[in-house]
């Protein structure tokens, strides 16, 4: 190759210019950042994630963590169970997988002790003694969630991922790369069954993706006569039916910063889907114009539907008066028909609050839901908390141990009804993360712990939320590439309204 002299001079100038600019930037940065700043994290806890005093399932991945205080000179961590002693030095505590697994198996139904000794740069010492209880109740080994920036209604490069809770393996179930940057909504399982789940990919080529009987189908759950396509809902334990709301969802912004966003419906009805007949059944008494019906789910035995309902109001002007009650109506799994006499299970007027996102435990004992001061989508309501009701006695459990001063919502049960996962914005108040709690047969709930990560700094470094975490008893039988192909190549099956 022959390079003209003029070009080579220009090239040389270009190289020199680039070197000089880079050098300048480095020098400039060095000068500006002369004194490095150490920023403490999560000052209310001495470790992050806060695993002190939690109960974990015997099959959980290693609880890697780091110390949060600024000015730590030296950190030593000693872990003891019976004769086993494991020692760590340094601010970050990262377990060897095999060592952790062995420890958990040996400590099942017992308590592991931790001693944290911190030597501070000023010379002081801090010592913390804390424990982790290992429950013999295994948790379903997979959780799926949508990873998305909390930028409210606009998305860019979102994905639904599935994580093995027993280790740190994660895979994309659907992502922007394979779907032309489509929006997608969260992956829900019927009673945590990996062979019965569904999620949406939005956009012209999107649809509802139903994973059933080892097959994934792309469905168009929309028809003339519905206020919109299906939105929130659940699949019947038999797999034949689904129950959904069809909502006209609008996002609004609060001028006051504490709540930020208010998502509300201007119309919403319920619809039953028959996945065998490709039919949509719209019960008139569950699709009234004078009320908003939303968030329907099946009871554990599949013989009832629970849903939320509120009188229509002019929104967003009166959104702070919008309060949803919890209703129950019978459902016949043989015909897909609903009873005509819904009954009130939780009365919004009586509680002066609003309920959303009910979910029944697979053992049929509990229904868990979110309570907020008002509205239907309280992920930015700091007051919104989880609560559950004993379906046999009507007793309400406030679940103080699980709740925080930030939004706690969007839970899902494990298949054995002993664990649940939920999304909480505790801590920084902006980014939702998946937290797990154990529930015993009496409804006692343990202190939640966040989904463990291999990198103990991941949550502090991450700028994405873990949206609508959902447990499953096994891995999904599809992945992002397969869904991407279906988005591009498969026509969505048409559903017709049943006459």
């Amino acid at each position, binding site marked *: 190759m022959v390079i003209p002299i003029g070009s080579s001079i220009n090239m040389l100038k270009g190289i020199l210019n680039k070197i000089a600019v880079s050098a300048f930037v480095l020098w400039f940065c060095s000068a500006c950042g002369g004194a490095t700043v150490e920023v403490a994290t999560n000052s209310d806890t001495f470790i992050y994630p806060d695993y002190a005093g939690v109960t974990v399932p015997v099959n959980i991945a290693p609880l890697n963590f780091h110390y949060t205080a600024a000015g730590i000179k030296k950190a030593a961590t000693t872990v003891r169970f019976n004769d086993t002693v494991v020692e760590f030095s340094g601010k970050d505590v990262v377990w060897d997988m095999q060592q952790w697994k062995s420890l958990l198996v040996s400590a099942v139904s017992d308590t592991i002790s931790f001693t944290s000794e911190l030597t501070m740069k000023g010379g002081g010492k801090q010592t913390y003694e804390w424990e982790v209880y290992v429950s013999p109740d295994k948790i379903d080994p997979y959780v799926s969630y949508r990873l998305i920036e909390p930028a409210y209604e606009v998305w860019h490069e979102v994905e639904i991922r599935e994580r093995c809770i027993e280790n740190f393996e994660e895979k994309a179930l659907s992502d922007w790369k394979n779907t032309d940057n489509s929006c997608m909504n969260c992956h829900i399982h019927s009673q945590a069954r990996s062979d019965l789940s569904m999620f949406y990919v939005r956009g012209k080529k999107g649809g509802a993706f139903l994973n059933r009987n080892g097959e994934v189908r792309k469905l168009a759950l929309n028809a003339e006569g519905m206020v919109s396509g299906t939105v929130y809902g659940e699949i019947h334990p038999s797999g034949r039916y689904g129950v959904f709301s069809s909502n006209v969802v609008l996002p609004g*912004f609060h001028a*006051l910063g504490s709540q930020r966003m208010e998502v509300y419906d201007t119309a919403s009805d319920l619809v039953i889907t028959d996945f065998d007949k490709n039919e949509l059944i719209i019960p008139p008494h569950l699709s009234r114009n004078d009320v908003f019906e939303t968030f329907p789910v099946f009871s554990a035995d599949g013989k009832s539907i629970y849903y939320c309902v509120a009188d229509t109001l002019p929104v967003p002007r009166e959104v702070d008066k919008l309060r949803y009650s919890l209703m129950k109506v019978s459902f016949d799994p043989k015909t897909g028909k609903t009873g005509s006499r819904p009954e009130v299970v939780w009365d919004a007027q009586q509680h002066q609050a609003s309920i959303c996102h009910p979910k029944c435990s697979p053992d049929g004992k509990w229904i868990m839901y979110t309570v907020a001061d008002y509205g239907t989508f309280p992920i930015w309501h700091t007051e919104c908390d989880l609560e559950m009701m004993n379906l046999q006695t009507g007793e309400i459990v406030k679940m103080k141990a699980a709740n925080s001063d930030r939004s706690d919502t969007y839970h899902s049960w494990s298949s054995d009804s002993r664990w649940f996962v939920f999304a909480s914005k505790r801590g920084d108040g902006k980014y939702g993360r998946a937290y797990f709690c154990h529930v015993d047969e009496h409804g006692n709930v343990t202190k939640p712990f966040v989904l463990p990560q291999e990198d103990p700094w991941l949550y502090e470094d991450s700028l994405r939320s873990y949206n609508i975490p959902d447990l499953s008893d096994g891995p999904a039988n599809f992945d992002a590439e397969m869904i991407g192909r279906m988005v591009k190549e498969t026509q969505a099956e048409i559903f017709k309204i049943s006459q």
Partner: protein
Amino acid sequence: MSPIKSFSPFIIFLFLLMSCSDNRTSYYRTWQEGHDLTDSLMVDFYGEENDGIEHALGLILEAIDGNWEKVEEMTRGSRKSELSAYYHNLAMAMKGCLADSLMYYYQPFGRGLFMPIGDESTQLKIAARSEAWYRLGEMTMAEHAAMLAQSFSPGHYGVPYLKRLAEVNLVTGQEEAAMKYLRLLSEEPGCGKWVSDRMPGQQSDEVKEHLKQMRTLVPTQDVVHSQGQNRIILKNLLASNPDNQLARQYLLCFDLLVKDLNSFIQDYDPSRDRSRLYDEAVLIYLALHNDINPQSLSHFRISNEVFRDFNDYDHLSVLSKGAMAPMQKKYGNTYWFFYQYAQRNTK
């Protein structure tokens, strides 16, 4: 000693060498260093030509630091760009002279004050959206816009947006969130002082004063609004703090830029809002309502000079039979001309 410092003499030598030939700020390269992008990727990501990128990045960075003189300097001239208009208007409003300068610059209607978000939005326009909301005191929208800017950035990460997110949360008193962003920034080269000046409990006097001033602008009453309801947002800011001069200028000028004279007359207070621009708008409103009379002119404090010019404009308009050129020559910088001739680019 860090590798950077061990190179210092060489680096300083090179810097001095190159500074002799070219000492202008290179926002393009500064930004590129932050994002680690190649030239072609820059165009792909930001959707602008390189020259436009350099200019737009400069505006974004100078505005975040509040260097309004520099922003004004960079937007001088007749660049027909929405970003230039947006930052020029903001710089003028920060100096309290938005109304007086409005018709002397390219005005893409409401987009000259608020950057909308849509399918056509480029990365840089998304990046710019937060600035006006922050300066106005609307922290929900400022945070929302900064998060969107973050989302649409290469790698979903950008130092300017982290700074804005940290500032918003410091203003609203949400220290845990602010600390998250400050910690991330503390690991970015060149941000050490910026972070240490803003650390809760250790803030510099300048930062304390800035936060105090910003907190006076934050709404004290709630309203739920949708994206794009700019007038509702501005009125709420003014209901919370009638002395929010930036919001007042933005409200009146927004009414005028979207040619909503009915709203303008509702919002306008001739006893406190004084500008020839407003007088010109009032005269159109009065003419449209057949209400030009001494009482109205007196009520709206219309000067004889403006009224005389308005009659001349009307006369010239009849003589020129609607031709734009003669009107533009004499009255191109009036609201009358904008109202009559400016048309939205619907492409």
